[in-house]
Structure formats: C-alpha cells, structure tokens
C-alpha cells in the first residue's frame, strides 16, 4: 500500500525530533530511512506505525487518513530492534499471536491460523523450530521469527527498526540478501531504519537520508551516491574529502593558485569543494592541480589509501589508487586533480540560490578529460 507522509512535525517536550517532513512511499517498494542517531529516522518509522502521534501533519495509507487511527487499526507489521518476541510463547504462538487476538468475527479458525503460521515459518526458513522458545534461538533466527510474526497479520506496510542492528557482521550480510528475496516474493511495502549506509545502499529501492529531524535527500542508491545534493549527504554517504576553495571568474582556486577546474556559471566567492577519494587522477608536472605530501599510506584490500597533507590550514585529504600506481609514485609529493567533484557555497552566502533537489547541479560535475 502507498504511504504518504505530509508535513509531519513531532516534538518531544519542546525538542523537535522531526520538523516538517514529507515523504511519498510507493506501493511495494523497499525503502530505507538512513541517518546518524538522533536524525529522527526511528521517530518517523514509529509515527507511520502509530506508536507515536504527530504534533502536526498527516499520514495517509492509500487514500485514507491514517493519522486518526490507532496502531491496532492501522494494520501494520512492526519488527522491533531487539525483536520483542514474547518470551513465554513458543515460536508458533509468537507468529500466530496477531491472528489469535482478533475479534471472533475476523478471526480465522484455529486450524487455519496454525497452517498460516507454519507457512510463514517455512517462508523464513524456520520449519521444525515452531516448538522452541525465543531463548533457544540464535539472534538471526529470532530476527526471522519477528519478521514472520509481523507478516502474519497481512500488514498494509511492513516497518523494520534497525532490523540487523543486533547481529554480527556475517549473519547480517546473509539476512540482508534474504530480506531482499522475501520482499521480492511477498511484495509488501517495506520501510526499514538503519544507520548503516552499506545496508541501505545495497538493500533498498530508494534511500531517504535524514539529518537533524529533516530529510536531506530521497533517491535511488545510485542517485544518492553519485549525486549528493548537500554537504551532509556527501559527507555521510561513502568517503569524501572537502577543501575550502575560492571562485574567481569561473576558475576554482586553492589558496593562491588555480587547480585546473572550471565552474563557469558560478559567481565569485568562497566555496567548499567535495570529491571522493577514488575520483581523482594523478598529474605529472603540476600546471593547475592540487598537491600534497604523503603522510600515511594504507593498503585496504584491492586499493591503496594515501593520506595527503595539503598545508597546515587544511584537513588532510585521502585518495585511493590502484596499488601498482601508488608504488610507482614513490615521491613523497603527489599532484592530482579531482575528476568528479561538486561545489557547495558557504552557508549564509546569499549570492547563490539554493540548489534544487530535483536538479542535481550536473553543470558543476565533470568527468575526467
């Protein structure tokens, strides 16, 4: 089912956890709410569920205004961060709970409830464990019971709060793939909260990046990674470098020299240049480039990470090179130029209109020569 969040505001005491947030969730999509802790992502999830009530704003399930409905009436499936399985009930009883508590007019017969619960346990690959208690299961198994329990009520929307947060790395990877498969098979509209960007980018159809109670960017994993619309998204998703630069008649200057990058349509003034460590090219003989002294060098799997010192006043910059290229540059001074990059104007600089979310400023992004 389609879920529309409209101008939602939520305050805890006088502290706004969410400020005027709007989001359209398409029917059948798998969408991730991604952000650091305190960004309001869990609050948004709980508001959609009806576990919290908004201070202001509306939430629609399809064409219906769900904000006036209680959590029971919304018919959602919620998977809690620590699963919240009923510890005194068997796995089977946990999964059938949502059907058993229905009023008798809407409750399927006992045999039917049992059959459906067993079907779901088969779907989550836990057949044969229906008589176990939660305490007798591993973390990954509990997680799957929690998911089966949430799906048993045939929810309008499936909501997962940090679904893999409490699991170790290996299990997390497996379950991630598995959740994607389940989603593709059942087609539930699914919203999950995570602080793990890798998880969000790998699993979701679309990612909602949140910060400080507001949505920074909504887009496919590719859009989010390749065209971040704000310094926050650039810094939060993947690795990135940022250096202070100056614009002068369409040229980008670093300190006292141009670095060979042009931003023709931009007015003069101070700005910040963002680029990813792997989006650079090495340059022989610096005629308009960035240059720095190598201060550290680390081999990470298939690439070599070099840390460069561009000068005392600037934070160190990290670049990634293929190991063979890095070893060939045995000078301690390296000259390079970003191949893909983006400029953000300093805050409070009124000379430049704020960029639109829909139009990532492609005129500013160039690919190598």
């Amino acid at each position, binding site marked *: 089912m389609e879920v529309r969040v409209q101008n939602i505001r939520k305050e805890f005491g006088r502290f706004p956890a969410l400020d005027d947030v709007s989001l359209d969730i398409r029917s059948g999509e798998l969408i991730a709410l991604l952000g650091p802790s305190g960004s309001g992502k869990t609050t948004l999830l709980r508001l959609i569920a009806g576990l919290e009530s908004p201070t202001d704003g509306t939430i629609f399930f399809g064409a219906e205004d769900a904000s006036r409905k209680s959590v*029971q009436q919304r018919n959602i499936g919620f998977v*809690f961060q620590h699963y919240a399985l009923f510890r005194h009930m068997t796995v089977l009883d946990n999964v059938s709970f*949502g059907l058993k508590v229905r009023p008798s007019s809407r409750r399927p017969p006992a045999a039917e409830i049992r059959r459906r619960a067993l079907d779901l346990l088969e779907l989550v690959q836990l057949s044969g464990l229906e008589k176990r208690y939660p305490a007798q299961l591993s973390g990954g198994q509990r997680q799957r019971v929690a998911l089966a329990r949430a799906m048993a009520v045939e929810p309008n929307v499936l909501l997962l709060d940090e679904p893999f947060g409490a699991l170790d790395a290996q299990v997390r990877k497996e379950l991630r793939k598995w959740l994607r498969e389940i989603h593709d098979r059942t087609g539930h509209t699914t919203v999950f909260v995570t602080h793990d960007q890798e998880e969000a980018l790998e699993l979701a159809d679309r990612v909602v990046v949140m910060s400080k109670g507001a949505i920074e960017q909504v887009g496919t994993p590719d859009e989010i990674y390749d065209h971040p619309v704000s310094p926050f998204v650039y810094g939060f998703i993947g690795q990135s470098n940022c250096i202070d630069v100056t614009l002068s008649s369409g040229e980008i200057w670093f300190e006292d020299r141009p670095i060979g990058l042009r931003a023709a349509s931009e007015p003069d003034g101070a700005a910040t240049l963002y680029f990813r460590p792997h989006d650079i090219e090495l340059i022989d003989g610096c005629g308009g480039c960035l240059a720095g002294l190598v201060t550290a060098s680390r081999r990470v799997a298939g690439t070599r990470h070099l840390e460069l010192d561009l000068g005392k006043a600037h934070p160190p910059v990290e670049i990634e090179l293929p190991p063979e290229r890095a070893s060939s540059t045995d000078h301690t001074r390296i000259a390079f130029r970003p191949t893909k990059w983006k400029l953000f104007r300093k805050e409070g600089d009124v000379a430049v209109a704020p960029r639109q979310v829909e139009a990532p400023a492609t005129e500013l992004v160039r690919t190598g020569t």
Partner: protein
Amino acid sequence: MALDTSPAPSASSKLVKAATSETRIARLTLIMVALGFVALFLLLPLATVFIEAFRKGPAEFATALRDPETFSAIRLTLIVAAISVPLNLVFGVAAAWAIAKFEFKGKAFLTTLIDLPFSVSPVISGLVFVLIFGANSALGPFLQKYGIHILFAVPGLVLATVFVTFPFVARELIPLMQEQGTSDEEAALSLGATGWQTFWHVTLPNIKWGLLYGVLLCNARAMGEFGAVSVVSGHIRGQTNTMPLQVEILYNEYNFVAAFAVAAVLALLALVTLVLKTALELRYSDEIAASRRH
C-alpha cells in the same frame, strides 16, 4: 613476571590463579562466617520456638491450639491476609505499571511515596489510622452516628496491614518492569491486540515470577505484622487479636507453651510460604531464567 605472592600452598604451583579465585583459607572463612550467622540468628531462634512449643509434649501443644481465643486469632490473621494481599496485588501492579511504563510529572515523588511504609515505624502507621478514624477525629462522630466500626474491628486491621505491606509487590515489580521496557507491549498492540489482551497475554506472563515473590513477601508480612496492628486492634480477646498479638498476650500471662504453640504455627505458615517459593523456583527454573533474559 608473574610472581605468586600468596601464602597458600598453591604458591609453589607454576600456574597463575584466576584473578577472582580465593585461597582455600579465605573461602572456608567466608563460608564459616556466613553459616555461623545463619545458625546463630536464624536457625537457633526458629528451633527454640518449636522446642518451647513442644516442651510439655504434643498433647499440651494441641490443647493450647484448641483454645477458642487462639483459634479465633488464627482465623482473624488469615482473614486479614486474605483481604490485604489481593488489595496490594492490584495496587502494586497498578503503581509499578504507572512508574515503569509511563512518563508523568511527580513520578519521582510517587516512587518515594511507595517506600514510605518501609521508612515509617509501624506503630506510627497504626497511630495514623487512630487519628483519622478515632472517636476524637473529624470522622469520628460521623462513623459513630452510622454505626460504622473501623478501629478495633476487621476494617482497621486490614487498613493497617495494607498500609504496612504496600511496598512489597510494587518494589518487586518496578525494577523488573523498567528493565523489560515497553517494546513487548508495543509489539502486541502493533499486532492488533487490545489493551486488555496485551496485559493478559504479554505483560502478566512477563512479570508473573516477580509478582509471585512480591505476593509471598507481602503475605508473610501481612500475617506477621505486629506494631501497626497492635495500635488499631484494641486487643479484644477472641475478637480483634491476630496471631502475633495473641502470642504477646499469652506470653505476658506466663503461658509459655501456648505462646510458643501459636508462634510455632505462625512460623510454620512462613516456612510453608518459603518452601512453596523454593519449590516453584526449582520446578520452573528454566522458565525463570528465560524470563530474565531473551
């Protein structure tokens, strides 16, 4: 450089001991001290009660218990406990629920208030009820006019007992419910359960062991309470004397066998409670362990 400087015989051993393991002597000393205290301050008095009760033989013991005044005291104690324990069960669950699961103004004050009966002397607790319901109180004339007996009657005894035993259930449940949080309840509600279904199928099973301990402790105290009950009872023989009061009266009359016979029955009730608790713990040890942690 691991030098074992302990004076124990194991000093010659090449293995370095675990940091938390004690020497044999230290362990034995600790165990002896603990056992010694238990024997001196718990077992000895308990044994004395039973020895004194049977000093003149089982026949005399039986006669003492068959005394109508004693019999009435036993009955009264059971009635008072049977009324006040369920009351405190309900109050305790409600108070613990409110404190553990809701945020509201004055929560810290309520938490402190629940401890009040523990910190106030039981005699004062009894006196409070005399001041409220006594003949010279504001309510006194009204109660007299309509012939309502609170002091020197069962209602007064129940009130005093409820007051004194109020904290037991709540104290037991508050930390438990706080630790468990509200996510189980939220899960049940999100699955469509009503508030009542959630309480009955999720909350209650989660707290049932804590609740049981609280009730057992509450019951033990309700039957054994002396101070507060003594003030509101009026000591009318065969009518408002509970077992602890009856013990005191008999003892003051130098009727030692009867006094200790009643005391033995009281002690026995407490022991039964304890044995019941231990038996349940053993029987359901797995489930208790599971309810503590996932």
